[in-house]
């Protein structure tokens, strides 16, 4: 398997996204466009995972890091959409962080960012 840590992190990201999409009632009832966005990101994760495994990109380190960082910012930035629901940023942050799948999603993005370096350590380079 190529880039085992990065691949595992991308897989975790897809799993946590799927859990949120399937079990968070408020996601679909209150903000379905957030749900569609999350589904799109999960699909992109799977596409990147596939590209990573096929080895079509010789050195995907920077791409994967930028991808993970951008998603981390987007997921964390979701808190800024609180006024859309008529609640405060603190209340929305409290709600989001109470979801273990959301916490896992953030952690998996950190793993994606660090993945290429961990993979190099893993390979002993």
């Amino acid at each position: 398997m190529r880039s085992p840590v990065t691949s595992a992190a991308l897989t975790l990201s897809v799993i946590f996204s799927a859990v949120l999409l399937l079990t968070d009632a408020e996601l679909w009832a209150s903000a379905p466009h957030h749900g569609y966005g999350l589904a799109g990101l999960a699909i992109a994760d799977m596409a990147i995972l596939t590209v990573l495994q096929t080895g079509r990109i010789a050195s995907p380190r920077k791409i994967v890091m930028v991808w993970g960082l951008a998603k981390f910012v987007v997921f964390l930035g979701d808190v800024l959409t609180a006024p859309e629901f008529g609640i405060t940023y603190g209340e929305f942050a409290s709600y989001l962080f109470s979801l273990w799948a959301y916490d896992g999603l953030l952690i998996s993005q950190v793993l994606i960012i660090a993945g290429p370096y961990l993979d190099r350590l893993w390979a002993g380079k």
Partner: protein
Amino acid sequence: MVGVRVAVLAVAVIIVAAVAVLLLMPAPPPTTEATTTQLTSPQTNIVSLTLYLNDYGFNASKGGPKITVFVGDTIRIRLIGNSSGPAVHDFVLDDKSPSPYNVKSDRLRRGQEQVIEFLANVAGVYKYYCSVAPPAGPSHRERGQEAVIEIMPRG
């Protein structure tokens, strides 16, 4: 190969930007039209009550008040969204209650209000509930957001 990497990076940035724009788009405001059952008799009592749509109960954190009326009464319910987070809730009395009624309010966020009105024309004991549910996992009803409405025959 550098060209491919730049292209993939550009596509990734475009996807993230598109998703960010999608996330920041304001949701359309819910409509406020009430679901009303047509009145068939001019001689009816109007039973008025207020229900706060809490997480995950009506006027409570679980369950809700038992509503008791007579056949022929008009039930007028003022619904007030009172969730603690981004959740929305509604009031539903339909075939899944189960009941012969088809009453469904809008889904209300905290601070939103709606008045619904319907005629209690079929006697029985039914459950009213919140219909919000994820594709999998517990619905609001399964979390306890349901209660009883009893419509008693007159005389």
